[in-house]
């Protein structure tokens, strides 16, 4: 029996499943918005603003979900500040510690971009546009984009930095979650913007199709490297069926096909995006709960 089966379950369940899903979308959406803002054209600004509108609430929801999962939620600040000395609590070798700071930084940059976006459309004073334009805007986008990528991917690294079945038996989970976060972030942007048909929609759809392909390759590599001794008890059951049907078929292959063939007519674009979101959610469910059930 692999050594990872001698461990106890941390019982990271639905709060964490939703956090991984929402955090991935928020991080991915900001990274895409930052790419568009830094390297796109002026006509792409509405789509990048949509990315900011998704990212900031996503970071708030992520924080709430994480706090709700703690057994002593009133002590959430112990993640960032040492309760006795009030010095910063930071361990670079502990993904849960780095992740707490990463989420905080992502929340800060996504908040600044959110404010800047609201200023651009005239809801807040115009002077605040500088938060997403010019030199300051570039800095917010670069730092926010990096922290967005971090938020989407570190959750998988966190799972691998344990001794639990499946999670600790692979080093590919971080990359898989990063790709899934990016693709679900793109999918939500498509879903919320397809009616307006923004100029960058075609770029976004093509990007998403590429990322879905990469996600499938990484998923196959992950399963191949984990080994049968782990796969048999963890995924050769209903969880494995859910992975194949819910993630591979519904979340990757069908939307990948829809990106190139409009089989659903007018609903092809939102339909594909919706399926990517469903697949991204099911991926988090299977990867977390199958190990917890083993």
């Amino acid at each position: 029996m692999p050594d990872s089966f001698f461990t106890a379950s941390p019982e990271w369940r639905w709060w964490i499943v939703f956090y991984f899903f929402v955090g991935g979308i928020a991080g991915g959406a900001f990274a895409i918005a930052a790419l568009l803002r830094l390297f796109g054209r002026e006509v792409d600004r509405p789509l990048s603003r949509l990315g900011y509108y998704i990212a900031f609430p996503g970071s708030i929801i992520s924080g709430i979900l994480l706090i709700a999962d703690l057994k002593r939620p009133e002590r959430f600040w112990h993640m960032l500040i040492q309760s006795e000395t009030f010095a910063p609590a930071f361990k670079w070798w502990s993904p849960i510690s780095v992740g707490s700071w990463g989420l905080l930084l992502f929340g800060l940059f996504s908040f600044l971009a959110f404010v800047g976006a609201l200023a651009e459309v005239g809801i807040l004073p115009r002077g605040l546009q500088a938060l997403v334009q010019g030199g300051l805007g570039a800095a917010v986008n670069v730092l926010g984009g990096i922290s967005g990528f971090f938020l989407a991917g570190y959750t998988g690294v966190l799972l691998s930095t344990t001794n639990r079945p499946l999670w600790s038996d692979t080093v590919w989970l971080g990359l898989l979650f990063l790709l899934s976060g990016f693709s679900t972030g793109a999918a939500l942007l498509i879903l919320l913007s397809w009616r307006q048909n923004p100029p960058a929609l075609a770029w976004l759809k093509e990007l998403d199709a590429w990322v879905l392909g990469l996600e499938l390759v990484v998923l196959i590599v992950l399963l191949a490297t984990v080994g049968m001794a782990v796969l048999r008890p963890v995924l050769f059951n209903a969880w494995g069926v859910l992975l194949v049907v819910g993630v591979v078929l519904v979340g990757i292959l069908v939307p990948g096909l829809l990106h190139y063939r409009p089989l659903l007519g007018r609903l092809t674009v939102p339909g594909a995006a919706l399926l990517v979101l469903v697949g991204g959610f099911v991926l988090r469910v299977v990867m977390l709960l199958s190990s917890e059930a083993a």
Partner: protein
Amino acid sequence: MAEPMGFFTDTSVCIGCKACEVACKAWNQLPARNGGKVPLTGQSYDNTVELSGIQWRHVKFIEQFSPDRSSGRWLMMSDVCKHCVQAGCLEVCPTGAIIRTEFDTVVIQSDVCNGCRACIAACPFGVIEINPETNTAMKCTLCYDRMQAGMVPACAQACPTHSIQFGPISELRQHAEARLAQLQAQGVTQARLYGHDESILGGLNSFYLLLDDPEVYGLPSNPQLPSRNVAPSAGLSAAGAVALGLLGLAGLRKRRMDQLAAEAREQQEGDGSHAG
């Protein structure tokens, strides 16, 4: 720092009396499971089942019987936190709740823990769990309070057969090696030490003499630190982030090139029509 202290548990003389469990519960004021209404498990004579946030010592009963039960034996082992020299729980704890003491033991500070449960997933032995009364992670402290007062931990004090021995690690290792040699001289060739040297997590400050493979006792053969996966996993993710950024940029560049080509075509067509 004081001399490293710990336990040597000689499972060959454990009689399964569970006095260690009772002493641990009594000294540490740990509550009964399910309010004391504990059903019989049917798992040999063991009704305390496993280590948990309110069960810091647990005596395992492992039945090794022939199919017709005409011959066989019980293996008994008083399990506890291993107080690893390289401790996975301490490594991942984000709040600093888990500390290494002056005795080289590992202790969770209940007033600091916020119940994130990272330590539970990190422990390669499945030792730590949440105490439902405090809602914090808990495990054996090696009776840190008693040690500070120069006393022997409650479990070792109560053990009637000296299966649980407490003392300086260097002395315990000598006892363990002598006992192993004695057993092997008596023909108990399956006897072996587990965690007595640095091969397992730099050494376990609670180590064992076993009479069978570690897996038979529910112990991993090659426990590792969770941090072994940080660098490769983070490296792959970082490379993926760079690749995604480049993929996005390539798409934007292609779009720009297509647009410029379309504009040039339009201009050419416009020039052609003017010339005509």
